[in-house]
């Protein structure tokens, strides 16, 4: 805030000391008002009448005087104070001049009535706010329980099952026992019977030594599990055929290929 005494500007000295005291008594600090409506409400209280009977015209004049003084004191005024000043000046002219029938819009009286309503409403809110804060308050005037007990949230889970669940569960185990091995093993297991069937059909055409591995069926030498299973089955089947006297079997060396050939007929036929 600028102090007029130290102002180099000549116009500030125009204010007499008493003027200044009067102005400061009114103004003190613009920051103390929460906006123009607050200021207007404060000013209206000086009329010491019921807000409903307040003279808006007088109030407008007081406000404009306040703004003028504040300007003289070079107080920083927020824009909304100036907007309100302009609006009140307009309202004042409306209230003072006879209504212009050509002009649209609300009359000065309507505008004044609304301003009076706003002031009354704000005053009422201040009043009830004070009443509210004046009430007995929790933790100040009355108190809640000091020792509280937490409510334990116990989640109780009950399990249930129906007779059908039970039956199905049981049937599931039993069926699993009976059929599961077949279902499980069919994919990658070749049985000796399968190999035997296969070899019986093929052996008639093998007059000379042939690698056992060539008897493996198509698609059974692709992955190791299937290869192992089919090799074992085929080997077992070939031993069975040797036992039956249908073929001969030989292996040249350790880990050398196993070879089989059709055994010459005792009759001498090949």
């Amino acid at each position: 805030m600028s102090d007029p005494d130290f102002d180099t500007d000549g116009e500030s000295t125009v204010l007499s000391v008493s003027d200044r005291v009067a102005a400061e008594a009114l103004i003190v600090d613009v920051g103390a008002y929460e906006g123009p409506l607050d200021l207007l409400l404060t000013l209206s209280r000086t009329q010491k009448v019921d807000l409903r009977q307040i003279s808006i015209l007088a109030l407008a004049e007081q406000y404009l005087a306040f703004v003028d003084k504040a300007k003289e004191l070079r107080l920083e005024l927020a824009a909304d104070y100036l907007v309100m000043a302009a609006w009140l000046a307009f309202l004042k002219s409306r209230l003072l001049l006879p209504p212009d029938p050509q002009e649209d819009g609300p009359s000065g009286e309507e505008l004044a009535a609304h301003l009076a309503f706003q002031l009354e409403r704000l005053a009422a809110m201040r009043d009830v706010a004070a009443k509210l804060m004046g009430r007995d308050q929790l933790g100040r005037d009355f108190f809640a329980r000091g020792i509280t007990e937490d409510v334990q949230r116990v989640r109780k889970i009950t399990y249930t099952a129906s007779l059908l669940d039970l039956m199905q569960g049981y049937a599931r185990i039993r069926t699993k026992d009976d059929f599961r091995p077949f279902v499980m093993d069919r994919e990658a297991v070749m049985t000796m019977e399968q190999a035997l069937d296969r070899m019986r059909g093929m052996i008639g055409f093998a007059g000379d030594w042939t690698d056992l591995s060539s008897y493996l069926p198509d698609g059974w030498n692709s992955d190791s599990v299937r290869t192992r299973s089919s090799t074992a089955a085929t080997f077992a089947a070939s031993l069975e055929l040797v036992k039956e006297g249908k073929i001969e079997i030989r292996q040249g060396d350790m880990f050398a290929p196993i070879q089989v050939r059709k055994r010459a007929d005792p009759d001498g036929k090949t």
Partner: protein
Amino acid sequence: MAKPENDSLFEAPPMGEQERMVEAILFASADPVSLKELIGRMPHGSDPAEAIVYLRKKYEGRGVHLVKIEDAYAFRTAPDLGFLMQKETVEVRKLSRAAIETLAIVAYHQPVTRAEIEEIRGVSVSRGTIDQLIDMEWVRFGRRRMTPGRPATFVVTQEFLDHFGLENSRDLPGLKELRAAGLLENRPPPGTEVLDDEDDADDDQVEMFEEGTE
């Protein structure tokens, strides 16, 4: 341990027992306990609402009262004995004038939008003011207003009512007088009526307000 909740085969406990139960549950909690929760926690078939009537009478004039806050109940010490409780007094955060006024406006005009609060106070409401009230759990968001922009509304909470010893927001001091004086109406400034008549914004607001406070 008793497991009364499932025992619908058994009769509800005698009313004297139910009183004891309500008493124990409410004593154990610092916060109000809703009737619904009481029903949920008490044995099947209990009627805590009736038990509360008796219990309330029993505590009349005592050092501790049974108070009602909306649909919930709590024990609170009698306000005239507050002077004994310096030790328990909690420092309530000092509220600014702006916060106190905003709180009052929310309480008396709820549900109220930020623009309406600003219109009533004649200044813009800083974000922090409403945040502070929400933080204190005295104010919360209400339904959005069905007007253009669908602005958020604010309403007061059960904690607010509890704090100020109000059974519900109808009991706000001076509410009837304010309404009778027309000071709770949302009166648009002259010259803006045309705009407001276009949509039913006004009707909606009045209706919502009445719903919230009646």
